[in-house]
């Protein structure tokens, strides 16, 4: 079975109580579609992924827009706006 790896960082990781997971993926989907899938889990997931809180996504360690496509084998990451430096 084909999968993607999803990572959660910082406030998101703490809020979801999860730093990452494997998810089965049969066909490519957009970042936005993945966020809708995650929001559908309800509770904290809905709060974090309903699009109201500022969120950034990376696919294979590159920042992407929500329309970008995700393919099997990809590493997808979600995190709040960055605050280093």
């Amino acid at each position, binding site marked *: 079975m084909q999968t993607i790896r999803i990572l959660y960082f910082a406030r998101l990781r703490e809020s979801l109580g999860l730093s990452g997971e494997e998810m089965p993926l049969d066909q490519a989907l957009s970042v936005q579609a993945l966020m809708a899938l995650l929001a559908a889990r309800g509770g904290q997931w809905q709060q974090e992924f309903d699009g109201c809180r500022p969120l950034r996504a990376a696919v294979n360690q*590159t920042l992407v827009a929500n329309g970008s496509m995700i393919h099997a084998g990809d590493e997808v990451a979600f995190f709040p706006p*960055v605050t280093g430096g």
Partner: protein
Amino acid sequence: MEVRVQHEDFDAGAEIARMRLARRDTGAVACFIGQVRDLNEGDEVALMTLEHYPGMTEKALQNIAEEAGRRWDIHDALVIHRIGELKPAEQIVLVIVSGAHRGEAFAACEFIMDYLKTEAPFWKKEQTASGERWVDAKASDDKARDRWHQS
């Protein structure tokens, strides 16, 4: 162009000396150090924890430094960013840019900091008397980055 993400502190003076002596045609070295302030938004900060995204963070910093090297005529750039737990007055970040002339070294150094602040995956959590909190991103940092789109 070299980037390092590390728990350990760094020796700014030693890194600057190394950069400026690496090439005898280097005339200018611009540098920046960021450190933990004891106060943020009115609250005393006891400890700051810096989280990063292993792999992507290093890649993002490398890309930013290389983009600076494409935009300006510089000799080299070094970025060191610390992760983990840091106390007030501890150093967080060091950026050094060497070049023949000061204008380009200054611009590249400030460019790297502005992009690091908005594009490199680091997140700060502060411990204050009223508990833990994640530091919010600042609109002023986006603005600082967006200046470079015009030039």
